[in-house]
């Protein structure tokens, strides 16, 4: 892969850290709801839902924390990819089964988002960001303006992520209105 400008991996790693830590926090605040959502995916025996929910939550929070320091970023990105692959597979399996009207359990401010292929696409983008966060960097001396680029760029990417989530959560309501 061609080397990237060093600001880009920083930006992607910071974006994923915010998404994962924020997601883990949201799930922790409604742990019962999240365990129920895991159960609704109907991929595990019902008794495993709560342990599986805790395992997902810990993996998510761990990935978010490991992505922050430079030394553990590669590990964090790998864990993030694993979590994303697992949940995206779960979503895809249920979409193929036709069980789309279940809560995605994604947490996040939008809450109660249903399953859709948009969710799979979104997770695909996050996977891409995880892969790029550990890409080779072209050596270049960083100046103060790069700090601005990374901070503002990360916030902008997160804003796009939040807006996309909100629009996906709106879609079923719009479809219901249209009748």
């Amino acid at each position: 892969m061609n080397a990237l400008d060093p600001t880009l991996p920083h930006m992607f790693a910071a974006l994923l850290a915010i998404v994962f830590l924020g997601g883990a926090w949201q799930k922790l605040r409604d742990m019962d709801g999240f365990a129920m959502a895991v159960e609704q995916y109907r991929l595990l025996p019902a008794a495993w839902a709560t342990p599986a929910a805790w395992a997902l939550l810990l993996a998510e929070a761990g990935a978010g924390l490991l992505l922050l320091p430079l030394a553990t970023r590669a590990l964090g990105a790998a864990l993030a990819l694993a979590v994303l692959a697992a949940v995206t597979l779960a979503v895809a399996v249920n979409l193929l089964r036709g069980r789309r009207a279940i809560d995605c359990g994604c947490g996040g401010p939008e809450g109660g988002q249903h399953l859709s292929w948009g969710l799979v696409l979104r997770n695909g983008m996050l996977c891409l960001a995880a892969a790029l966060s550990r890409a080779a960097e072209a050596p270049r001396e960083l100046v103060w303006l790069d700090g601005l680029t990374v901070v503002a760029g990360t916030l902008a990417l997160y804003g796009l992520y939040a807006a996309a989530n909100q629009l996906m959560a709106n879609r079923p309501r719009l479809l219901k209105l249209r009748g």
Partner: protein
Amino acid sequence: MIDALAISNAILWAVVLALLVAVFALARQVGILYERVAPMGALMIDSGPAVGEAAPRLDLPALGGGAVAVGAAGSHSQLLFFLSPTCPVCKKLLPILKSIAAAEAGWLRIVLASDGEPEEHRAFYRRAALTDFSYVLSAELGMALRVGKLPYAVLLDEAGRVRAKGLVNSREQLESLFTAKEMNVASVQEFVTGQAGQGSGT
């Protein structure tokens, strides 16, 4: 020149972030609008026995053993709560139902109703610790009361007449059924409409 570019870059970032905040806020407001514009009929669905009419009288076997006389005249009112093991909102309401059952035990009996595979319901009955409630499985009951969406609740008074009913998603909506019975109105919507009518009349 470099200074000028740096300044222009900083300003552009500020504008981009402000615009993203605006886009997110707009998307959120659109979402709220969709929800508000959605038919207000949510609480009461206009079919099945009307408020004041007698509910069908059915003797149904309960999951825990014994029988439940739904719609029978007796010393207590009955709250029929229609649920399903696969409905997350129903599960969210179960602890609330338990606290209501304890608090209103003086005048109210809660009957959980559903239909489908008895095995699945028995497992749910045990897992969710519902043994304090009567739990009946009857497609006939759901059809007679025209239950479409879950969780749905029907409040029957001591004489077996329907006093309030509707789709319930929260403790407030459940309690609104009791309020409707106390105030002798069919639903909170009717009450609000009545208020508005009186307001414009004077």
